[in-house]
């Protein structure tokens, strides 16, 4: 008795992975840039610019293929964001980050072809 075997082989995962990683990497980098820009805009809009030291302390950095961080090197940043016993809060990071959740998800979906 003869037997017919059909083997379906799909071995393009490596290429797909590389393409997706590359596209998603760009989305992440753009989102990090946008986040930095939004934070700085909020700092200016809330009148938190005196010497400009805090405004200019914000940096974006790519830390991996699919990872980036946006940060300030000023230790008093959390005091401004969350407030202290002696100073009211002026949220400028959380609203910026949450405002980018939707655009980031949409851009990520588009990058992998799932619009």
């Amino acid at each position, binding site marked *: 008795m003869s037997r017919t075997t059909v083997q379906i082989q799909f071995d393009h995962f490596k290429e797909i992975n590389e393409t997706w990683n590359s596209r998603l990497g760009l989305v992440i980098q753009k989102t990090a840039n946008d986040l930095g820009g939004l934070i700085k805009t909020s700092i200016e809009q809330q009148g938190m610019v005196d010497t400009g030291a805090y405004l200019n302390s914000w940096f974006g950095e790519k830390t991996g293929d699919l990872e980036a961080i946006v940060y300030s090197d000023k230790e008093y940043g959390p005091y401004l964001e*969350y*407030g*202290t*016993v002696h100073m009211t*809060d002026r*949220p400028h990071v959380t*609203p910026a980050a*949450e405002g980018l959740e939707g655009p980031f998800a949409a851009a990520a979906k588009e990058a992998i072809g799932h619009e």
Partner: protein
Amino acid sequence: MSETFGIAEWLYETLSGDDADVGDRVWTFPAPQSATTPYITFQLQAGSDTPFFGDTPRMMRGTYLVRCIDKGWSKEDASVVADLIDGLLEKATGTGTDVAILGCIRQSPFEMTETSDGEAYQHVGGIYRIIAEATPAQ
């Protein structure tokens, strides 16, 4: 009435349910300078709306910082209160004026040490996401 008012009302009432000596010391941030530590504060950090057409009520998503603030260099007492806060809020639901709180979950723990003129204040709590639905009075 604004949803944020109703949510603040619900947070105040829920957090005041803590009977571990701090329940009568709940403030919307910032607390008065005369407030006795430790105390609990809450504040809106960010929010967004999901509007719907027709009769479907608007949904609001708010990110709230809820924390215990205590004076001193030790985080121990503030951490105990932070656990109480979490017990009261995590997965809690309820109502406030013109608003139904559909869900409340902690997004991340929160810790901050504030130093000022040689004194320290410990801030321990969590960042909570609250989903609420507007329920305007008929």
